[in-house]
């Protein structure tokens, strides 16, 4: 595929003896929203987590194959894993704000990258909070703990925090599943805006969400990629039998 930022080749992942990801070969286009779609337990979250090597936290995980980011292999990289992770922001299923103030949550990523000048931090924190439509809601309470925000606000704070690290890619693992409809829509709209500057990989099992915001769809089932296609082609003219069955709601 042209303009792909991530290319995954022959990726296999085992959890102990369980074969979770089987011969994954996919490409993720740059500055587009790629949705990984599939029923629960199909391995889509594991695939997403293997991108920023979070799967490494579990010693029983064995992984083989290649994950190329701009042509560089992430799995056998000489680069430090923290440097690799800084290239990707993660939005989890539910928000995990850091145990500190709203301000410091966003400033945290800047600080660990060595930026400490107060003026710089102030302007960047405001910038990223504005980017996630949070500034007007929190500008008078920046010093308050992040725990005082609502779940929807916390998720947007986590997005702001992730953007502050200046990643190229945003990984989102069912980021709206814990949110109310209004907050979900805000996140979705935000993603549509952010794709001009970032590559977004979104895991979801919600067809409507995939249809609304995806540019590219990867459909997974039982640890395998069944079909990957442009969003219109995927929904209007699916090629595989399993895809058709899933789109018709024959299994979830």
């Amino acid at each position, binding site marked *: 595929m042209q303009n792909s930022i991530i290319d995954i080749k022959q990726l296999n992942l085992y959890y102990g003896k369980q074969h979770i990801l089987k011969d994954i070969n996919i490409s993720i286009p740059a500055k587009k929203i790629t949705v990984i779609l599939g029923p629960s337990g199909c391995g889509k979250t594991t695939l997403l987590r293997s991108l*920023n090597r*979070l799967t*490494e*936290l*579990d*010693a029983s995980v064995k992984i083989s194959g290649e994950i190329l980011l701009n042509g560089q292999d992430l799995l056998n990289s000489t680069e430090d894993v*923290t*440097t690799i*992770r*800084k290239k*990707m*922001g*993660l939005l*989890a*299923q*539910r928000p*995990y*704000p*850091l*145990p*500190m*103030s709203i301000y410091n949550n966003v400033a*945290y*990523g800047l600080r*660990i*990258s060595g930026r400490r000048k107060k003026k710089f931090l102030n302007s960047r924190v405001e910038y990223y909070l504005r980017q996630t439509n949070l500034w007007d809601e929190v500008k008078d309470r920046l010093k308050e*703990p*992040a*725990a005082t925000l609502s779940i929807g606000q916390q998720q947007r704070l*986590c997005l702001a*925090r*992730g953007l502050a*690290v200046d990643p190229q890619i945003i*990984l989102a693992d069912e980021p709206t599943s814990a949110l109310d409809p209004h907050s979900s829509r805000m996140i979705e709209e935000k993603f549509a805006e952010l794709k001009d500057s970032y590559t977004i990989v979104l895991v979801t099992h919600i067809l409507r969400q995939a249809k609304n915001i995806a540019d590219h769809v990867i459909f997974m089932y039982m640890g395998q990629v069944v079909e990957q296609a442009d969003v219109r082609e995927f929904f209007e003219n699916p090629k595989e039998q399993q895809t058709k069955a899933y789109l018709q709601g024959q299994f979830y």
Partner: protein
Amino acid sequence: MRKTLKIEERFYRVLMFLSTTFICSALFVILFSILRTGLPHLSWEMISEMPHGGYYFGKSGGIFNAIVGSVYLSLGASLLAFLLGLPIAMFINIHLIRLTRFVAVIRFLLDLLWGVPSIVYGAFGFTIMVFFGMRTSLMAGIITVSLFILPIIVRAMDEVLRNVPKGLLESAKSLGSTNSEIAYVVYFKQCLPGIITAWLLAFGRAIGDAASILFTTGYTDFVPHALNEPAATLPLAIFFQLSSPIPEVRERAYAASVILIFIVLTVSVVSRILSNRYNKNKINF
């Protein structure tokens, strides 16, 4: 069926009520008997003065030396144990997260050490002192007691750190944090109330223990001015006075117990206040 369930439910409720009442009243009786015997003998003289000649035979004076010695010893030991213990607890919960079996072995060993009686630590400390030619001193006591409370403080902090949800660790990792940043910024802030409680637990054990300091800290009628001087401690002051044949002196032991309880109470209240104060940033998942 429903009727037997109801009877069973009532039976266990009565059982739980009885055991709760029994335990609480036992604690109350202990406290009451100490206060009843101790309070009449508690005087300003006892708190503020050194033992004068013949104090242990019922003459005038106080146990100021033991109060100060105990506070020095337990503050020193709990601080040392904290400085050694926090990195251990962070290390096994963050850096070694992949090595689940190895961590289980470490936890098992720490639990084993927790169960070792303090007199064994005292004997161990004494052997080391003899080896280095040290005399009984505040320093030797601080080292011995800190070894004795180390497994306690590590496991107490470990239990708190273990309860941090994995999602927070993963979120912090995804931001590109190093393990040290996660440990001393994220986990430390999230667990600070629990860490303070762990320190309190260790302090309580340190100030109340007599066996580990018997051979290592010694006893003196003076307030220590340096780490290489011996120090008096409250548990030993209680022990010496209780073993006296003179009733007057034995009753003073209860007054010393009241002082000990008061110190522990004060430290608990202060650390509870601190713990609540640092609770505000904690995320409740």
